[in-house]
């Protein structure tokens, strides 16, 4: 019995060593050979990535992903894991890239490679429509503010946000209580309950607030924007750092994004989904 076990172990280890000696292909080669690129996206944010009236994925990120795949010459396949699972890295080949409006923060660069940005979003405060006491961002001192957990907005309020290549100016006041939600949409729903019921303000992406007040909560969520955006974040395509030989794919993606800047594709998509140009000038 014991002998059999060791013989088995020996065979198994030979198989593994044998497999390992095979040529280690680059991620780009693997994608081209498979003829399909697996893209993860978090379908929680309209108009970046959401389920349309037919229950299909749609949005700016989805269109960018389709265009990237087209220019690579492969098919696109979407996976929709929880946001935390995407940002934590170690994807283990379950998907190849993330096109999910991700901000390259310093922590994330430890687990992920980032391409050049493909667009940028302003971070915007919003309050309930009926509110009259909060007139400027300064008036938010000591108020209750809702954000999505582990978002850049959450970090910003905690004065713990380091963006690659962006200088951040923090506010000189502190919120009395920062409430975090699984996703930004929940914060907006909570402020929509009524002025000061649970929250006094939310901090999230300007397009999200725009979309909510236009088409959310049945007939438009009762929220209004407050002041100017507090910071701008550049959003990039992410690759798993734990997967070896990603460099050629990263280079190729940068070339593709660059070409999408040059021929105006990104601006067109931004106008289509956001109604405004969110593409930074290079």
């Amino acid at each position, binding site marked *: 019995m014991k002998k059999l076990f060791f013989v088995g172990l020996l065979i198994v280890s030979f198989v593994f060593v044998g497999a390992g000696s095979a040529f280690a292909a680059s991620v780009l080669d693997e994608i081209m050979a498979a003829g399909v690129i697996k893209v993860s996206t978090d379908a929680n944010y309209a108009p970046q990535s959401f389920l349309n009236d037919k229950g299909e994925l749609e949005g700016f990120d989805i269109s960018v992903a389709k265009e990237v795949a087209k220019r690579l010459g492969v098919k696109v396949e979407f996976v929709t894991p929880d946001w935390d*699972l995407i940002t934590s890295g170690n994807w283990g080949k379950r998907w190849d890239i993330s096109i999910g409006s991700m901000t390259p923060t310093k922590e994330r660069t430890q687990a992920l490679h980032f391409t050049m940005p493909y667009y940028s979003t302003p971070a915007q405060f919003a309050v309930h429509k009926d509110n009259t006491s909060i007139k400027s961002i300064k008036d938010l001192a000591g108020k209750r503010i809702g954000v999505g957990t582990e978002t850049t907005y959450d970090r910003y309020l905690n004065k713990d946000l380091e963006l690659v290549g962006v200088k951040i100016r923090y506010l000189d006041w502190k919120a009395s209580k920062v409430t975090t939600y699984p996703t930004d949409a929940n914060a907006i729903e909570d402020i929509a309950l009524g002025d000061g019921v649970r929250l006094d303000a939310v901090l999230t992406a300007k397009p999200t607030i725009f979309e909510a007040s236009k088409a959310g909560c049945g007939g438009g969520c009762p929220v209004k924007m407050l002041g100017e955006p507090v910071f701008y974040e550049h959003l990039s395509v992410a690759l798993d750092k734990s997967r070896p030989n990603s460099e050629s794919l990263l280079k190729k993606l940068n070339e593709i994004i660059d070409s999408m800047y040059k021929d105006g594709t990104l601006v067109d998509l931004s106008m289509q989904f956001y109604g405004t140009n969110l593409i930074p000038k290079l």
Partner: protein
Amino acid sequence: MNQTDSITRRGIPPEALETMRRIDARRSNFNRNIKISLAVMVALMVLGLVVLGLDFKFMAKWLGFILTGLGFTLLVSVLAISLACVLSVIGALGRLSRNPIFNAMATLYVSLIRGTPLLVQVYMWYLALPQIGGALQELGFVGVQKYLTLPAIPAGIMALAVCYGAYMTETVRAGIQSIKIGQNEAAKALGMTGAQTMRRVVFPQALRVIIPPVSNEFIAMVKDSSLVSLMGVWELSFRAIKIGRRYFQSLEMLILVAVIYWVMCIILQTVQERIEKHMARGERGENG
């Protein structure tokens, strides 16, 4: 009715018969009142939903889309409970084993799994396994990571099966232990080995005790299967949550999906009652 008929046939004095009829009537009265109360409570709940001012048109519009996720929910639950059944029998035999290693393994399994949240376990299967694979690969087990990187559905099934297997281990163990020692002794007297006794005498009888609680676990699992939505499986709750967030109307979608789960569990409960009745067929009184 049947009961009273057979009573008459046995020639019971009419006064006693009258008392029995009255008890019977009281019982059916009680049952009727329960049904009325239930109906009133459900009506109150529906009224509550109306007062909430829910967007029923919105809910009706997305009902079909959400129901499409039923397949995944059932697939994950059925496969996971099947696997959990196998695990629980092995676990119970381990817990009752006189082999110290086997026994300790089963004890550790039950203690560890029951002592940690299912949510954490789901993450472990999904996130930690590939990382272990990576570490093993660096130790020289090349190619092992590929096999340890489970896709979402298998990872979810494994997490649920292993978790419920631990709880059910205790159910199965209790079922086996509920069989009187006399059965063991009788089997031994007939010359059966330990394994034969377990297979032919103890386990078939224990099954009768075990099956009702196991169907109970299944009902619980159907709801816990919503945890696989974390990994991006488009089952019932995933669909509801995404649509709710999309239109900033989470409450409507959550209530809708809750009702779907509830109806599903009512159906399962009816099935469970049937099974229980079926299993109780051969039951006899203490002295029988």
